[in-house]
């Protein structure tokens, strides 16, 4: 029963990764990181419910709660950065932000 959940978590994680690499809109890129978090949450809770040995525990759910808190912090900071960058350049294209690149 653990395997389908792990596989689904891996699929969600990889789809988020592909989206992060291939999309050029900054907001969609950060949305894709949130999608990777969903895959990880599914993994954690599935491992808590169906541990490889021993009785089921709630530790997976507690870790998932911490993960949600980190995701919220990440979303707040990322969106603040996106708003600031949008005010600088007037575009959400990730290719437009090359100020850090050494030319």
């Amino acid at each position: 029963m653990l395997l389908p959940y792990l596989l689904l978590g891996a699929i969600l994680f990889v789809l988020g990764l592909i989206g992060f690499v291939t999309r050029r809109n900054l907001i969609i890129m950060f949305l894709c990181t949130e999608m990777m978090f969903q895959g990880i949450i599914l993994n954690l809770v599935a491992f808590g419910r169906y541990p490889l040995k021993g009785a089921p525990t709630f530790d997976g759910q507690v870790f998932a709660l911490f993960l949600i808190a980190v995701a919220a912090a990440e979303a707040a900071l990322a969106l603040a950065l996106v708003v600031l960058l949008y005010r600088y350049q007037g575009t959400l294209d990730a290719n437009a932000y090359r100020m850090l690149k050494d030319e």
Partner: protein
Amino acid sequence: MPTLLIAILTLGAVGLFLAMPGGRADTRRVGWVVLAAAGAVLLALLLRLVPGADPRGLFAGFALVAVFAALRVITHGKPVYSALYFILLIFAVTGLLVLLEATFLSMALVIIYAGAILVTYVFVIMLAQQSRPAPYDVKSREPVWGCLAGFLLLILLARQIELFLVPAQRTPLPAPIAEAPGTIEAVGVPLLTEYVVAIQIIGLLLLAALVGAIAIARRRPTTRAESEGDE
């Protein structure tokens, strides 16, 4: 089974590449057909692994919705629709969490993600909305290499998951949690006893992120001409 799994995932990679934004409309349609075929076979394969006693129909439904919504998030050309499909993904994951007897966590996920984080995303998307489709939404960046790298990773992960679970499958599955499965009491007591230091640190982290976000967002931007004039 490994070769079959690899074949399905490769098919999925090809379908996703065809369906990425940037291609012609008819190739994107072909990509969706390929993706649907790969998804159907994968679902049948997953269902064979689910024991009959578990609610396999519900798992199949939620898994299908989750993967479809995830694909739409990364292939849709309009950011607002991507965000809405992400909310659909949240609801599918919530259903899966309920199947895993994590009821409190599933409700927390809906409230925090669909209710708070996604509203912020939609707000920022609307702030930066453009009247016609932006060029950076229409064309994706290096879809070939992105899909290739992602699906190589997925194949590797699937292999590892399989190898890792072969010894574990022989042991009997743990019984369902009898009393108070995943309620706020079951999660809250370890949260405030065993993990009390961690929750303090998380609180500090959230505070720091809040202050940082405000400090970043209220900074007055200087235009490029001004900053060059300063130098």
